C-alpha cells in the first residue's frame, strides 16, 4: 500500500473565535490554554487559602464553620496541586518542548487537545462539589478513609474529578514521552537535549507509573462506599493503612513530578543570566534520574506514626535522606554555573535565585522530617505545612513565575514590564517568607495542621502568617497585570530575547510563528 504523506499542517489553519481554542491541535495554542487555565486556578485556589488564613488570623471561630474550613483546606490543596501547578508545567511543556527539541508540534496533537479539555471539566466538578448538600470533600487532599467516606453527596464527584485529572495527566505524559523520543531534530542526541526536556521526560515516566496507582486507590474508595467492598475497612477484613500506602506510593513521586520541571526551568534561567553554559550538564541529568528513582522508594516516610517495623523505619528514613545527595548535586551545579559568570538580575533570574535559597530551606526541613524519631514530634503539625509550602510555593511556583518571565517574550513577541516584574518578585519573595517562616515555629511549638481554632499562645505567629498570606495574594494581582500588559503590547522582543540565551527556541522569531521547524533543524 502506498501512503501519501500530507503536509503536516494542511488542515491546521487557525479558526476564528472560541472554536479556535476548542478545536486547536497546535502545541502553542494548547500551551497557552494550559497556562491561562493554571492562572485562573491560581486565583481560585488562592482565594481558598485566603479564607483559611482569614479564619486563622486570630484564635476562636470568626468567619467560617469548622466543616467549611476543612473543605477549604482540602479543595485548596487539590486545586493547587492538580489544577494549578501541574497544568502550569504542562503548559510550559506544550509551548517549549517542541521548540527546544526542534519538533514541528507534539507527536499526538489531537490527544493533546483532549488532555487539556478534560481539565476545565474536572476542575469545575471539583469546585462545584462545594455547593452540594454536605459540602465538598473535607478530609485533606490525601483522602484518607474512613474520614473521606463521611463526605456527603460530593464523594462520587470528587472521585470522578480525581480520575479525570489523572487521565489528563497520563495522556499529556504519554504525549511528552513520545514527542521527545521520536521528534527530536536530527543530531540532537539524548545527552544534547536541553534540561527542561530532560526533566519533563523523566517526570512523564514518573507520572505514568504513579498516577494509575492513585486512580486505583480512589476507585477502591468508590467501591468501598457504593459496591460493598471493604478494601480499607477493618470490619470487613480490609485495612485503612493500606490506602495510605497506595496514596503515598503516588503522593511522594507526585512531589517530584511537581518539582522536576521546576528544576528544568531553573537550569535554563541560571546559565542564561550567568552567560555561561550549565555546569555539569550530564551530572544534572543523572541527578534528575536518581531523584526520580529514589522518589519511588521513600513513600512510607509520610506514615512513620502509623507504626511500622524498625527495619521499615530505618529503610524509609535513610532512603529519604539519600535524596539530599542528587539534590545537593543540583544545587552545587547551579551555584557553580554562576561562579565567575557575568551575572545580571532580571526578573527570571531573581525568581531562580530565590528558588535556589528557599527551595534549599524547604529541603532542609524535609531532612528534619525524614528523621523518624523527630517526625513523631513534627507529624501533622504546622512544621509540615511550612516545609511543603517552601518546596511547592518558593520552589515550584517561583520557578514557574521565573519561567513565565523568561519565555513570555517568545510567546507574545513583547518584553514584559521589568519594573512590574521586579515589584512582583520582591513582594512575592518577602510575603512568602512572612507567611510560611513563622509556621515552622508554630509547628515546633505543637500547633496541629487542619484546625480552624487554636490555643492563644499560637496567636502572634498566626497573625503574622495571615498578614503575609494577604500580601502574597495581593502581590499576584501585579503578576496578572504584568502578564496582561505584556500580551497587549510592549517593547518588541528580538528572536534571541536575552543576550546569554542559547538553544533552538531562540532561533525562531518572537513571537514564535504558528508553525515552527516544519523542516527539522540540524543540531551539530
Amino acid at each position, binding site marked *: 500500500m502506498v*501512503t501519501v*504523506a*500530507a*503536509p*503536516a499542517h494542511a488542515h491546521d489553519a487557525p479558526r476564528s473565535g472560541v472554536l479556535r481554542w476548542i478545536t486547536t491541535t497546535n502545541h502553542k495554542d494548547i500551551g497557552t490554554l494550559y497556562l491561562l487555565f493554571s492562572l485562573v486556578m491560581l486565583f481560585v485556589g488562592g482565594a481558598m487559602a485566603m479564607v483559611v488564613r482569614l479564619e486563622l488570623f486570630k484564635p476562636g471561630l470568626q468567619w467560617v464553620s469548622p466543616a467549611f474550613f476543612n473543605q477549604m483546606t482540602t479543595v485548596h490543596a487539590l486545586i493547587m496541586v492538580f489544577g494549578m501547578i501541574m497544568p502550569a508545567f504542562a503548559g510550559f511543556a506544550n509551548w517549549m518542548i517542541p521548540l527546544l527539541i526542534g519538533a*514541528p508540534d507534539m*507527536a*499526538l496533537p489531537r*490527544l493533546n487537545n483532549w488532555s487539556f479539555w478534560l481539565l476545565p471539566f474536572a476542575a469545575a466538578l471539583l469546585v462545584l462539589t462545594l455547593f452540594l448538600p454536605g459540602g465538598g470533600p473535607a478530609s485533606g487532599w490525601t483522602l484518607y478513609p474512613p474520614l473521606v467516606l463521611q463526605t456527603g453527596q460530593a464523594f462520587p464527584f470528587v472521585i470522578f474529578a480525581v480520575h479525570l485529572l489523572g487521565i489528563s495527566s*497520563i495522556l499529556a*505524559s*504519554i*504525549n511528552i*514521552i*513520545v*514527542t521527545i*523520543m*521520536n*521528534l527530536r531534530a536530527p543530531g540532537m542526541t539524548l545527552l544534547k537535549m536541553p534540561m527542561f526536556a530532560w526533566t519533563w521526560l523523566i517526570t512523564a515516566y514518573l507520572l*505514568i*507509573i504513579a*498516577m*494509575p*496507582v492513585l*486512580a*486505583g*486507590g480512589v*476507585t*477502591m474508595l468508590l*467501591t468501598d462506599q457504593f459496591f460493598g*467492598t*471493604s*478494601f*480499607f475497612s477493618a470490619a*470487613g*477484613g*480490609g*485495612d485503612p493503612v*493500606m490506602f495510605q500506602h*497506595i496514596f503515598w506510593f503516588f503522593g511522594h513521586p507526585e512531589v517530584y513530578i511537581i518539582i522536576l520541571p521546576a528544576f528544568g526551568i531553573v537550569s535554563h534561567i541560571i546559565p542564561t543570566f550567568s552567560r555561561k553554559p550549565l555546569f555539569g550538564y550530564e551530572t544534572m541529568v543523572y541527578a534528575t534520574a536518581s531523584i526520580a528513582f529514589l522518589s519511588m522508594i521513600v513513600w512510607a516516610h509520610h506514615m512513620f506514626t502509623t507504626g511500622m517495623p524498625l527495619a521499615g523505619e530505618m529503610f524509609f528514613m535513610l532512603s529519604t535522606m539519600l535524596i539530599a545527595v542528587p539534590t545537593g548535586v543540583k544545587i552545587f551545579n547551579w551555584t557553580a554555573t554562576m561562579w565567575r559568570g557575568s551575572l545580571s538580575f532580571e526578573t527570571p533570574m531573581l525568581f531562580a535565585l530565590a528558588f535556589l535559597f528557599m527551595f534549599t530551606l524547604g529541603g532542609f526541613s524535609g531532612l528534619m522530617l525524614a528523621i523518624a524519631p523527630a517526625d513523631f514530634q513534627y507529624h501533622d503539625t504546622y512544621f509540615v505545612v511550612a516545609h511543603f509550602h517552601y518546596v511547592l510555593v518558593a520552589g515550584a511556583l517561583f520557578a514557574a513565575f521565573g519561567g513565565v518571565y523568561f519565555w513570555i517574550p517568545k510567546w507574545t513577541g513583547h518584553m514584559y514590564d521589568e519594573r512590574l516584574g521586579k515589584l512582583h518578585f520582591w513582594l512575592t519573595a518577602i510575603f512568602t517568607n512572612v507567611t510560611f517562616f513563622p509556621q515552622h515555629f508554630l509547628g515546633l511549638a505543637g500547633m496541629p495542621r487542619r484546625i480552624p481554632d487554636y490555643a492563644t499562645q499560637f496567636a502572634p505567629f498566626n497573625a503574622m502568617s495571615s498578614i503575609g498570606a494577604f500580601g502574597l495574594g495581593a502581590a499576584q494581582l501585579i503578576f496578572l497585570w504584568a502578564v496582561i500588559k505584556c500580551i497587549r503590547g510592549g517593547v518588541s522582543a528580538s528572536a534571541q530575547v536575552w543576550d546569554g540565551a542559547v538553544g533552538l527556541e531562540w532561533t525562531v522569531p518572537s513571537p514564535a510563528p504558528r508553525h515552527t521547524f*516544519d*523542516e*527539522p533543524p540540524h543540531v551539530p
Partner: protein
Amino acid sequence: MMRPEEHNERRRVRARRMALLLGVFAAGVYLAYIAFSLLSGGA
C-alpha cells in the same frame, strides 16, 4: 533522501505505537494495583 513531511509522518506513526504501549502500561499499573489489593484480602 526522504522528504521532510514523509520523515515527520514516519516519526508520527512510530510515536503512535509507542503511545499505545505506554497507555497499556498505565492501564496495567491501575489494574495490577486493584488486583494486588484484592489478593491481599481487601474487598
